């Protein structure tokens, strides 16, 4: 179906586009960008006055839980949540059961994503077989099937010799090595950041050095191997400095920060609300300031959600025993827009960190809001306020510290190849159940 989005603010900083105008979608592509465009017969016309049209958002770090933990999330519910959050592409971590360490699992994920018919899925393979940190995974075959990056997700490869080979082997197949940097011997599985607030809470803390020590080692190995390296959810000021230094030396390094680490600090943990328990943990005010500055100056390439849906079985527990992670695909956009409203960085910086720059980091095809490009876009109502509660969420989960709160900003329409994967343009305005997921 062809579609004319009229009178919107068309915003694509990578292509220097910021104008009020119209955008015509035809045959899955952007047919025209301009003003006074006419809707022909059979073309759906959307009056988007006062709305924002962005290139579809890209999230390099989500957990879709399938195969193996379908009670938390499935590829269908996870990609529906992505679509509702304005994301056209999500890269899913391989910590499934079994882990995505061979083409059979990769193929299953891609088939389920195709059936779900919502946002696009880019599977991340493991670095090592079974994520066990012992032997290399089948990176060559996974790359043939569409894997762009490899990671052992929550488990950094501890063995430095093996990590060197991971980088070399990933380089062989053009894959990006994505590391969750955590020295387990130092972090000890502690549920929060080590500092003033862990002293107050009486909870064990992970020192900031647990992250930076692995990152520092890895950057030395990147220099040794020349492999493409991407630091996952960077959370400390020390890590930011290391990335900045590596980039200055010209190392092939990119980095991401989560929207929640840009928003919250470890003070949130003082409530013992397990919906504040994430890994890496929320850090200090100074760390958050360093992350924000790093996004603003481009040291951090991508903003991610680390969408980590859990059921109440993992979260309705004592803080020490609860699982790490919060869901985030549907709450990312309002949090990001809030940072822009608060003057933390400008809209262009936010959108580049959610579109062109993550695409570049993982080597994904990307063109943006230009004529002839695939119609991957999102129409956003920046002013719409909605309540974060299960009935307004498409994810199976609701493990977010924002649960029950009002947030402002919501995707009204998300197109993947011109196909509406989320559509609440004609909705009542209160929630997320009004659209038609996967309609074509």
């Amino acid at each position: 179906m062809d579609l004319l989005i009229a009178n919107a603010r068309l915003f694509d900083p990578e292509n220097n586009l910021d104008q009020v105008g119209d955008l015509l979608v035809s045959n899955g592509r952007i047919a025209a960008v301009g003003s006074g465009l006419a809707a022909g017969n059979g073309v759906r016309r959307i009056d988007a006055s006062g709305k924002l049209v962005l290139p579809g958002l890209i999230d390099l770090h989500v957990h879709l839980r399938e195969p193996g933990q379908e009670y938390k999330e499935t590829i269908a519910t996870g990609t529906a949540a992505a679509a509702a959050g304005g994301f056209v592409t999500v890269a899913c971590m391989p910590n499934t059961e079994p882990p995505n360490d061979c083409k059979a699992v990769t193929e299953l994920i891609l088939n389920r994503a195709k059936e779900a018919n919502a946002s696009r899925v880019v599977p991340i393979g493991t670095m090592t077989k079974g994520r066990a940190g012992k032997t290399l995974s089948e990176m060559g075959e996974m790359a043939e099937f569409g894997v762009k990056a490899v990671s052992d997700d929550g488990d950094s490869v501890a063995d430095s010799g093996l990590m060197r080979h991971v980088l070399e082997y990933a380089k062989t197949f053009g894959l990006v090595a994505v590391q969750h940097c955590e020295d387990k011997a130092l972090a000890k599985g502690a549920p929060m950041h080590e500092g003033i607030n862990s002293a107050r809470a009486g909870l064990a803390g992970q020192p900031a050095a647990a992250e930076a020590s692995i990152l520092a080692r890895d950057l030395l190995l990147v220099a040794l191997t020349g492999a493409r390296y991407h630091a996952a959810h960077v959370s400390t000021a020390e890590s930011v400095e290391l990335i900045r230094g590596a980039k200055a030396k010209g190392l092939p390094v990119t980095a991401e920060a989560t929207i929640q680490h840009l928003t919250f600090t470890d003070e949130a943990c003082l409530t013992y609300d397990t919906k504040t328990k994430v890994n890496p943990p929320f850090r200090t005010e100074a760390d958050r300031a360093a992350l924000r500055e790093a996004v603003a100056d481009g040291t951090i390439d991508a903003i991610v959600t680390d969408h980590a849906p859990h059921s109440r079985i993992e979260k309705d527990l004592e803080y020490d025993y609860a699982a790490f992670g919060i869901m985030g695909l549907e709450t990312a956009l309002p949090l990001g827009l809030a940072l822009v409203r608060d003057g933390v960085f400008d809209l262009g910086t936010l959108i580049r960190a959610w579109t062109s720059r993550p695409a570049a980091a993982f080597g994904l095809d990307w063109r943006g809001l230009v004529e002839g490009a695939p119609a991957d876009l999102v129409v956003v109502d920046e002013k719409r306020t909605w309540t974060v509660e299960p009935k307004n969420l498409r994810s199976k989960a609701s493990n977010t510290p924002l649960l029950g709160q009002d947030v402002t900003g919501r995707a009204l329409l998300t197109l993947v190849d011109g196909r509406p994967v989320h559509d609440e343009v004609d909705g009542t305005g209160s929630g997320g159940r009004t659209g038609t997921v996967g309609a074509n």
Partner: protein
Amino acid sequence: MSFGHRHLLGIEQLSREDILTILNLAGTFKEISERRIKKVPTLRGRTVVNLFMEPSTRTRVSFEIAEKRLSADGVNISISTSAVVKGETLLDTARNLQAMNPDAVVIRHSAAGSPHFLARNIAASVINAGDGSHEHPTQALLDCMTIREHKSEFEGLKVAIVGDISHSRVARSDILALSKLGAKVAVAGPATMLQPGLETLGCTTHTQLDSAVEGADVVMMLRIQKERLGGESLFANSREYARTFGLNRKRLDLLKPDAIVMHPGPINRGVEMQPEVADGKQSVILEQVANGVAVRMAVLYLLAGESEGA
């Protein structure tokens, strides 16, 4: 008497006035324990559940005696729990307890914040009897009561707390309570036992025992809690610990002449404290135990006894 709290989750939530309210009331309850008939009908018909999810003898017995002396019906539940051996969840335990409508639940648990979790999920008053390495408010209150019986003023009092501060809920609650009351608290131990950020609780930190205890009015020695170290190596051995951080007769000379020596028990004799110090005339360790009953009576009365349903 005003006490605007439904739960006792920690010292953190209490004001200086709240603490003094409890101490004053404990002072009047202490007299009951000295009578021949050690029982008053104050909490008759009230049900108190002692939910101990971590081994404890003295705290549990102290609460039980406090409940009996106030004529409350105390029920003991001991459940051993750990992250590895999963039985019923704490949430389900809370809901089951609530179904039996207790007036108060006294909880001891190995995970910090568990009383807070319970309080969010139960209508009864929750009393924290020790949560992980976080707080042990009734211990701090009995410590303050004991100190007040020997020292007229908290203001300006020099208190040293020695041992594994990082893993000590007693230390955390004592630091908070004593600093709220105006005392100057110094903590000491090897750096492996002094986690970053302790100063923000209201104390100075010292890696030399002598600098912490010099001129002190009160010295509190903590038990080296091997069971909470999770296999971590925090000191070389007991012999070296006793030499570097133990309290012996020679070190007593550094204290003020009228200083008192305290210990939350149980004591590792010969490790953190030499027997002649533990049994010496400056030791008030058994007074602490006696005051524990009085303080717990006061807390139970304030939370389970007053206004509601009276």
